[in-house]
């Protein structure tokens, strides 16, 4: 590659990273926590810490009792029932209908799988925030809502892909750089080597995560835009052409099969019972069940079947009938992105790799600022680069503290349940801003980083104590029971917090800027010049 092209490519890598690096850092870091949504849900709500069951109570009486509170004549669009699993040992239901005032209502209910007792639904907070901030940045309705947010995250996925491609092309000595980690040289060289080595070793994961993330985000914004342009603006025609026209109710009432009869149907492929059941056009002669059977084939989460809810006969021409290669690859995107296809240990591998993506993004930004602040590439004042450096430190180090602060809020919250999610958001941004300000007040990025790292460690260590004191569930007791999900969250935070605190404690008090060979030569030459001649 010629020198000018190499420089152009390097500039593309550098500027795409600098302009959007902090956003990519935020998405990568929040993604590490989004992996554990189910586990955090159990940690968040003690009511869900239940023992998994082999058999559960009948479903239909629960649904009938639930629907009894609906106003007469309400037309349900669908009801979804999830049967208990090992990770969610309770029965969970959703229903969607139009209220009398014309608003769309999504309702949720949970039942104890053994007794059928209705479980209290706690308002969403911690777990949802950690998942959705990664998925759609909790984008406000006033600016277009979650769809826009999700599309933006997808666009950042494409920028990350571009950054990866240009980064790989920028490596002219790729084989040497795989193993080049000069740990005892200057901090800048250390950051540069870490950025390259981790970037190269993690390349397959980073490529996969950026591509799947781009697909999951773009599906909501760009793919519809492409289809709507092709259909000259006719949105309904797009949905009909891609998904098939929905079965419309005829208005003729009919006796339906019960949820328990649907739940007893087995998969022709695996013989498994359905884990998730949808019913559409409730009470109509066109009513159908969508049955989702757990699939044990790598990245395929479910085998699906559409049957008539009147007689259980499979519906012909259903979109589930003939999965194509394209549909299988598209369906594999979410399990691939969230690591849900091979147990909890895979999620920890994803966590480590995701964290390394966040770290190399932060290192890239630090290198860019450092080269300009202390090197010869800067064209602005030193104050300008110092300010950038403080912002970078505050944003990068403030995010973990803000994330951990949500766990404390969750357990110490005393306000109205309806305000829980909003308070979660204010706490998140509030804590983040406080630590950005701290980076400015401290005026020493190294010390600020070390101190905030220590704080993160201590907050992690305190998490099991907080959970034990507020819920009475101590991890060292619960870890031996068969509902140990929350206890494992506690233990993970305890170990992770202790390791983080130890790392921060072991770091030197001051940044050690070991001189490079050329720097040492310059200093020696200067000393030689200033020494008196013998």
């Amino acid at each position, binding site marked *: 590659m010629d020198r*000018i*092209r190499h420089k*152009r*490519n390097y*500039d*593309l890598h550098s500027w795409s990273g600098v302009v959007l690096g902090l956003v990519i850092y935020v998405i990568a870091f929040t993604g590490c926590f989004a992996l554990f949504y189910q586990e955090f849900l159990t940690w968040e709500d003690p009511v869900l810490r239940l023992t998994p069951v082999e058999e559960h109570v009948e479903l239909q009486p629960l649904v009938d009792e639930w629907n009894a509170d609906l106003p007469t004549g309400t037309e349900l669009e669908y009801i979804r029932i999830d049967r208990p699993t090992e990770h969610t040992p309770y029965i969970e239901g959703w229903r969607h209908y139009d209220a009398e005032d014309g608003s769309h209502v999504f309702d949720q209910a949970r039942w104890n799988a053994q007794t059928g007792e209705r479980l209290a639904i706690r308002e969403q907070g911690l777990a949802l925030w950690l998942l959705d901030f990664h998925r759609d940045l909790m984008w406000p309705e006033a600016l277009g809502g979650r769809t826009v947010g999700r599309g933006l995250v*997808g666009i950042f*996925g*494409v920028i990350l*892909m*571009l950054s990866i*491609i*240009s980064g790989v092309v920028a490596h002219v000595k790729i084989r040497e750089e795989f193993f080049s980690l000069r740990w005892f040289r200057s901090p800048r060289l250390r950051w540069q080597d870490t950025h390259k080595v981790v970037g190269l070793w993690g390349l397959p994961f980073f490529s996969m995560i950026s*591509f799947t993330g*781009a*697909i999951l985000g*773009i*599906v909501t914004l*760009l*793919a519809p*835009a*492409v*289809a709507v*342009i*092709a*259909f*000259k603006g*006719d949105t309904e*025609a797009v949905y009909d*052409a*891609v*998904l*098939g026209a929905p079965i419309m109710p005829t208005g003729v009432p009919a006796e339906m099969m019960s949820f328990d009869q649907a739940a007893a149907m087995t998969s022709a492929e695996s013989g498994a019972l359905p884990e998730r059941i949808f019913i559409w056009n409730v009470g109509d002669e066109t009513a159908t069940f969508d049955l989702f059977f757990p699939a044990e084939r790598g990245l395929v989460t479910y085998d699906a079947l559409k049957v008539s809810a009147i007689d259980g006969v499979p519906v012909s021409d259903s*979109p589930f009938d003939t999965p*194509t290669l*394209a*549909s299988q*690859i*598209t369906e594999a995107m979410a399990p691939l992105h969230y690591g849900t296809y091979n147990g909890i240990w895979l999620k920890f591998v994803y966590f480590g790799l995701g964290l390394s993506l966040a770290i190399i993004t932060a290192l890239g930004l630090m290198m860019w600022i450092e080269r300009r602040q202390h090197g010869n590439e800067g064209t602005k004042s030193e104050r300008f680069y110092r300010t950038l450096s403080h912002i970078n430190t505050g944003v990068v180090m403030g995010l973990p503290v803000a994330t951990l602060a949500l766990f404390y809020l969750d357990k110490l919250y005393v306000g109205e349940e309806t305000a829980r999610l909003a308070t979660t958001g204010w706490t998140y941004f509030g804590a983040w801003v406080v630590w950005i300000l701290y980076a400015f007040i401290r005026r020493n990025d190294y010390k600020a980083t070390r101190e905030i790292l220590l704080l993160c460690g201590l907050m992690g260590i305190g998490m099991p104590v907080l959970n034990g004191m507020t819920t009475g569930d101590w991890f060292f007791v619960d870890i031996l029971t068969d509902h140990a999900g929350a206890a494992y969250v506690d233990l993970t935070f305890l170990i992770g917090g202790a390791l983080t605190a130890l790392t921060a404690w072991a770091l030197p008090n001051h940044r050690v800027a070991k001189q490079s060979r050329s720097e040492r030569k310059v200093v020696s030459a200067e000393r030689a010049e200033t020494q008196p001649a013998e």
Partner: protein
Amino acid sequence: MMMYAILAVLVVGIGLATWKAPRLTSVIWWSLIATIFFCSALLLALPGDFSTIALWLTLFVPICWAVFQFWCYWDSSKWRVTLSLITITVVSIGVVVSIEPPV
């Protein structure tokens, strides 16, 4: 009227930006526009089952966009890539207008 005024400002702004900084405008704007219209044209022009093609194109959109963006800084001529992306957009619009979507 207001819409036309906004549209005119947008067109003039993008034209000026393209003239002043063709690579930067291409990487930010033309690569995205070319991707959307190129994929729309492919959706209509490619033979086969429509929903399957739509799914393949969903997978193709981010790759296509990233490749177009990368191309902007790879090509040694700053005008060649800009003009190519504009040409792809115009030809794709022609395909979209001339082919009727499936009923």
